[in-house]
């Protein structure tokens, strides 16, 4: 029996066994490379995606608990031909070395900024505590997220004439 969920805006009927962590479903059944296996223990954040707007560690999230819910991965933020603001910010700041942790960072950042569009440096650092970067790219990552934050704010202002909503 398939598990029905929405991934990056599209309905999906996942055939993988419902006890399989979402991470493997995203990668192996749906071919989405963004979320990564880093530890499988919920300690490193490389598998971070968004579910119903909240950042989640997909390596500890059984598929059965995602039924009927909305999953967002980096692939849903934009494409190589048309990258979204978060992706453009990371490219502009060259915020990557090996890059393995980056999609997790981006999804965490996306979640934080969705809930708190004016998150400051301290709030960003606190939110990103759950994501490890071993190459030492943290300063650039923060710069990229701040850049994305400012871009989101600009767009929100342009659209609504006011600040805020993502």
């Amino acid at each position, binding site marked *: 029996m398939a598990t029905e969920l929405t991934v990056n805006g599209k309905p999906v009927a996942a055939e993988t066994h419902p006890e399989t962590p979402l991470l493997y479903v995203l990668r192996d059944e749906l071919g989405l490379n963004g979320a990564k296996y880093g530890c499988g223990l919920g300690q490193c954040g490389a598998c971070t995606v968004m579910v119903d707007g909240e950042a989640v560690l997909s390596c500890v999230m059984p598929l059965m608990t995602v039924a009927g819910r909305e999953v967002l991965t980096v692939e849903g933020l934009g494409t190589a031909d048309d990258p979204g603001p978060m992706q453009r910010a990371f490219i502009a700041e060259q915020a990557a070395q090996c890059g393995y942790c980056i999609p997790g960072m981006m999804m965490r950042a996306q979640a934080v900024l969705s809930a708190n569009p004016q998150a400051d440096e301290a709030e960003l650092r606190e939110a990103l505590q759950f994501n*490890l970067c071993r190459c030492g790219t943290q300063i650039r990552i923060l710069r990229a997220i701040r850049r994305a934050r400012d871009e989101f704010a600009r767009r929100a202002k342009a659209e609504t004439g006011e600040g805020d909503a993502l």
Partner: protein
Amino acid sequence: MSDLSTLTRRGFLGAAGGGLLVGFAMSGHAWAQSEEAQTYDASAELPGSLPDDPRLDSWIRIDPEGGITVLTGKAELGQGIMTALIMVAAEELGVDPAGIAILTADTGETPNEGYTAASHSMEESGMAIRHAAAHVRLLLLEEAARQTGTSISELAIEGSAVRGPGGTVGFGPLAAALDLAVPARPDVPLRAPADRSIYGSDVPRVSIPWIVTGAEYYVQDLRPEGMAHARVVRPPSAGARLISVGASGVDSMPGVIGVHRDGNFLAVVAEQEFQAVSAMRALQDAAEWEESETLPEQSRIYDWLRGNVTETGTVAEQGTGELPSGERTLRATFNRPYMLHGSIGPSAAVAEMQGDRLVVHSHTQGVYPDRDAIAEMLGMPQDKVRVIHVPGAGCYGHNGADDAAADAALIARAFPGRPIRLSWMREQEHGWEPYGPAMTMDIAGAVGPDGRISHWNYDLWSCAHTTRPGGAAHLLPATLLADPVEFDLPDLKIIPPGLGDRNAVPLYTIPNKRILFHFVKQMPIRTSALRGLGAYGNVFALESFMDELAILAETDPVTFRLRHLDDPRAVAVVEKVAAEFNWTSDPLPANVGRGFAFARYKNMAAYLAMALELQVEPETGRVKVGRVHAAVDSGAAVSLDGIRNQTEGGIVQSLSWTLFEEVIFDRKATTSIDWSSYPILRFESVPDEIAVHVIDRPEERFLGTGEAAQGPTAAAIGNAIRDAVGIRMTDLPLTREKVMAALDARRAS
């Protein structure tokens, strides 16, 4: 015919997508070329990796449409080498980097450049490609001159074509008329620094757009047709023997294709990845091992090193090794523990056995050595084994990648005919990757009445700092087989760039010095190359000691260092960072300190000086780094941003090493097997600010930069703590407990 061998051989294109590259305007000026016949001076040396592979088309290829491909034996580890090498080629050829594709380390396609390590990539591959590209350019121009009936001085390169009064000819037709299977010439003219327009410009890295959009990029992303998934069950401790595998029910678990056992090597293959993980766990529970205590006591590891010396080598000697009496003398002991590479993504590989051919996709730093080792392990001829590099997570040296490739190869041989992706688990990476070796060192020095160091004695105890595959004897899986290969313990090797003794010789001018490496051949805990090798521990020790000598000489630490530096490039980085940081001796608030450090990596590669400010919290022993400045001289700076990125990254990583990291083990096995028990730096401890100032020296050759920051960062932290709260920390890592204990001890005395 599997798709595997055609996978990823599309090459990594320099064109990262519309509009993303900075618009690049070619000046189109003519190449100033001497009209004199170019004589081939066979006695001159080819630079970089060219001597091993002098044919031009080993490095540069041009297809009939004019598309340019650069080939390198080096691998992209996240250090941005692909982009840097494209830039080098583009600069010499005189073309837009966006038009160049690059093929990286592949035993079936690219030159053999050994390992992507030791920060040699620019020096080896960069110099080779630069030279080859310049030669290819010359040939293109000569051919164009011949075809259009003009002289080279009237020609200019525009786009992928040569234009002149006689017409324009594209690279494609030109290359088709050329034979690039010719050896490179050592005397080919290279583009003068004044004519450069790409080095130092901001060429965005080609891989970042792929990384942020989830493109298929990592070895973990490979999904060739028919691929199955595998997991290994590792022994519970070093030297454990697999007695039996009980009834695990594994064979009837969903998706399981089979189990492979060979001595102490145990693996399971399944259709889906999580099925393989679940099967691995069941197999693990059912396996019974005979274990023994093979590891030394961690709390006495430095005594153990000192007590097990095999051979002592002299690294450097000058004057006398006897410290004088009656002068100002000092002694200290420094310690550095075993440390992890700690790659964020555990090692993985994809392998397939098709008939008598094996193809392995791996993130190994050395596809050729790994290929040779795997072939040896399997008893196969080398030309039947192909290893292709695909990026993995950052490796920072010899991590589990080579072993994972060997694991995958063994499993592929047991399950031929379909690709198998093998991935290690986090616990396996933490437990089985080769560690950065423990080191302990004694320093004794003296300062003369003239305020200069007169004597310097350095004694280092450590195991081998590299056990990279140089044969199956360095592949972990090979040592687990029923007919095992015995792990080969390296002997002491003293070479100019150093290994465990890397940077043990200070660059400072000191009349009397004696530097000895007391080598321990025994290796109960497997160690190998970790970024910087011995430089991390040696620079921590010697730069900390320099500050203590400076205090003895009642001199400012920067002034003291300058007093002993004769190399003008060293002086330049020291002065540059001191100025940028605004290094003074003005008083700082309580518990705040500033620290300085300098080193020239290997005494041959990049120069780096740094200054930082930090705060110590006496109540908790916590160290919080504020602002950091570094000055780097990498010779001719190709990718400025690459240099900055690597330096920032090295500083942050070294900060984590220095404050937090040490492998924990009991008498049988490593117990720090995940991020909870081997914590590394998280966002809260990231410095407030890191500024990297690059000193560009266009006339000079490329210098390796990726490892230059590790040692100086550790020393700068130690020196800043000394400045902040007056305690000299000598025992890495500088944990909160140690800081508090040192503060308590000082208060008590």
